[in-house]
């Protein structure tokens, strides 16, 4: 059986306390909550999403969380799929909404928010913030610089306690 690879390949655009409207510079406070089945009606490839999140949601070993703007919970700004392992949290997938990708994105800060949330979950589960994920090779440097992630060989990246503290303090210090 040929094993197919799944890499995390997302550009961390900016670390912000919330989401920032790229055009106006206005900031918006965010919520991150677990998804339910009703969330996936418009989270399809036809709607511009790149991953099959409905399938991801159905997998029993992981939870899919959505990032929304406070008081505007119908519009999903980004999604992350996480598993709680024996000693850390593992990030399977992360994706910004189609309108938050590329040079014409509406909001900056989606991936940073979601990664910080994953670190927070790791602290809450008693894993001291440790988070791991598989990165695409050409983004390893980027994750090292923006997230403080450590490259542990191959495509494996780990965010340790120090880096996780910086991220969670940035996003969840209030």
């Amino acid at each position, binding site marked *: 059986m040929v*094993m*197919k*690879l*799944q*890499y995390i*390949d*997302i*550009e*961390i*655009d*900016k*670390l912000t306390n919330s989401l920032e409207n790229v055009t106006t510079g206005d900031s918006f406070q965010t919520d991150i909550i677990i998804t339910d089945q009703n969330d996936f009606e418009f989270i399809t490839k036809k709607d511009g999403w*790149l*991953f099959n999140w409905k*399938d*991801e949601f159905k997998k029993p*070993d992981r939870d899919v969380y959505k990032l929304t703007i406070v008081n505007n919970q119908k519009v999903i700004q980004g999604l992350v799929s996480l598993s709680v*392992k*024996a*000693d*850390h949290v*593992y990030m*399977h*997938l992360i*994706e*910004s909404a189609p309108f938050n*990708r*590329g*040079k014409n994105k509406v909001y*900056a800060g989606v991936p940073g928010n979601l990664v910080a949330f994953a670190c927070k979950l790791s602290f809450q589960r008693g894993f*001291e913030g*440790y988070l*791991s994920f*598989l990165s695409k090779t050409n983004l390893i440097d*980027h994750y090292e*610089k*923006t997230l403080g992630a*450590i490259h*542990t*060989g*191959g495509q*494996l990246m*780990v965010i*340790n*306690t*120090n880096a996780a503290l910086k991220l969670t303090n*940035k996003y969840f210090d209030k």
Partner: protein
Amino acid sequence: MGLIKEPRDIDFYVDPRPLTKEEEKRISDFIKADKKKHKRRKMIKINTNA
């Protein structure tokens, strides 16, 4: 933290697979070693300050 240079396109590709046993072990070994390293640093700091 400043703005990070934006790529023109963000491409994702995905083929679902779980971590291999070897990768899981590698992560766990790294975490154990990293925790030990930081504990040692903390102890050295405490001793220096004493």
